[in-house]
């Protein structure tokens, strides 16, 4: 990876960093932070599914683990929230490794892998909903105590910058994957596992690496969510909604690309907000927009928004080679 590879990332992150200077309305900042959290969740999914071809339907397992770890460590054990954040991400990595080890070692792939991840997420949701340590169905409230050393801030802009920094860091991480041996091997596994093996790729190790990274990134998004909303319950943390969000953003933005998840999250939630504003108080109207956008993306832009842009720029390119941003 050279400096040239990350210049676009630096530019875009720098540009976004100025947003809170222009918009100060809390509702808009709320929307921006939430969108960034979704983007981060989706970035985690994109590492495993976009680059590795292992389609998880249960990224809630990582998101929830991060969210609960962040909340419980500080509420129950009195650990500093910043430390809890790091442990939360590590816990996500661990859960990723365990799920990966169990399913990849037994050779699960495709829809079987998707089902197993979904099952893990559901089991965790039910457990979190029942156990007393997690607060059961009542969930966990993090005490409001606005101090920077407490990972709580007076202004929402501070949170926006932290979320943006994390998204930026994962953009760089993803770019590194794209340019590294690990990434080449991961993509080889996605394209053809048998051929990858024959070329000396330790497919189990590569897939485990991907799901561990993926788990850590998505768990970091969960930690951020808990820290921002100061409340977690089983249906938020381990709910299917977040698994779906994690999948939708990259598909709409551009699966297996560096910027896909961010572009997708902004497009989906941006459009959702706009329709909510335009259509007034029709409940679920933003979900209808999500659905239509997904249909349109799958039908007309299988490589997502980024793929579409690339096609307009170079119309004669074969679709196969367009996986690289």
């Amino acid at each position, binding site marked *: 990876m050279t400096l040239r590879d990350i210049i676009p990332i630096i530019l875009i992150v720098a540009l976004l960093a100025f947003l809170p200077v222009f918009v100060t309305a809390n509702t808009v900042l709320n929307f921006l932070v939430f969108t960034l959290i979704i983007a981060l969740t989706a970035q985690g999914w994109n590492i495993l599914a976009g680059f590795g071809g292992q389609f998880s339907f249960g990224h809630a397992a990582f998101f929830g683990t991060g969210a609960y770890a962040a909340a419980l460590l500080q509420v129950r054990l009195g650990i500093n929230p910043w430390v809890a954040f790091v442990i939360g991400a590590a816990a996500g990595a661990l859960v990723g490794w365990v799920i990966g080890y169990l399913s990849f070692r037994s050779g699960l792939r495709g829809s079987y892998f998707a089902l197993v991840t979904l099952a893990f997420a559901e089991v965790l949701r039910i457990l979190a909903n029942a156990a007393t340590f997690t607060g059961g169905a009542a969930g966990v409230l993090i005490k409001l105590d606005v101090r920077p050393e407490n990972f709580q801030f007076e202004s929402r802009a501070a949170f926006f910058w932290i979320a943006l920094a994390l998204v930026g860091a994962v953009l760089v991480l993803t770019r590194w994957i794209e*340019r590294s*041996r690990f990434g*080449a*091997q991961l993509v080889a596994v996605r394209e053809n596992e048998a051929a990858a093996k*024959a*070329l000396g*790729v330790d497919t189990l190790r590569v897939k485990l690496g991907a799901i561990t990274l993926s788990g850590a990134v998505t768990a970091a998004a969960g930690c951020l969510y808990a820290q921002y909303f100061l409340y977690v319950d089983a249906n938020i943390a381990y709910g299917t909604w977040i698994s779906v969000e994690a999948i939708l953003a990259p598909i709409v933005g551009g699966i297996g690309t560096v910027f896909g998840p961010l572009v997708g999250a902004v497009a989906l939630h941006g459009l959702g907000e706009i329709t909510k504003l335009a259509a007034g108080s029709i409940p679920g109207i933003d979900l209808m927009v999500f659905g239509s956008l997904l249909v349109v993306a799958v039908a007309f832009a299988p490589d997502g928004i980024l793929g579409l842009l690339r096609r307009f720029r170079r119309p004669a390119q074969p*679709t*196969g080679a367009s996986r690289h941003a």
Partner: protein
Amino acid sequence: MLEVQNATKRFGGLIAVNQASLKAAAGSITGLIGPNGAGKTTLFTLISGFERPTEGRVLFEGQDISRDEPHIRAQRGIARTFQIVQPFAGLSVVENIAVGAHLRHARRSDAMARAQEVGRRVGLGPELDKSASSLTVAGRKRLELARALATEPKLLLLDEVLAGLNPSEIRDIIPVIRAIRDEGVTILMIEHVMQAVMNLCEQVYVLAQGKIIAEGPPAEVCDDPTVIEAYLGAGAAERLKREKVHA
């Protein structure tokens, strides 16, 4: 270099490979021929590690590798091509080859440089930046060869790299294979194209119904009555001999 000792592979009640033994000497080109369904590809999967032998051993450079995973064998220096080509369809040709090159080159730039070099050598130079899925059959066969070669193997297992090619394409690729051998890579090849086998191989093994029924230099093996019967059915050798006398 490579030695297979009494390898047997059973799939349930079916014996695909039965007590097969063969040797490939360092620096040689060894052929493996036999009628369809004889178990040639299965024997290859035992050598490359995609299947494990039910009985028997596979030795590589004197070490027993029968239980090693495919990627470990690749690291040791065994590379294979697939009879049914397996390109990374979403990647460009050079990226395909680079996956192989990454086995010995950690840095992306080194692997890409090596991939271009290997690609040009097997005649894929003009196609390097095209998508692998846009290649013709001949191109895909070359890509299989290039990817395997990019792992810098000591032993190259070629599973019908000439099948599906027209005579002029075969003429083009035979010197490439010979050049690979001349650089010190041992080659074991499954091949139906007898022109190539006669041309390239020093030693040939014939597999029929899972058993090695003949071995020796190609010209000798082709005259072996048991081999003729394995291909053409019982009594065929006798009939051929009679026809030859009459003619």
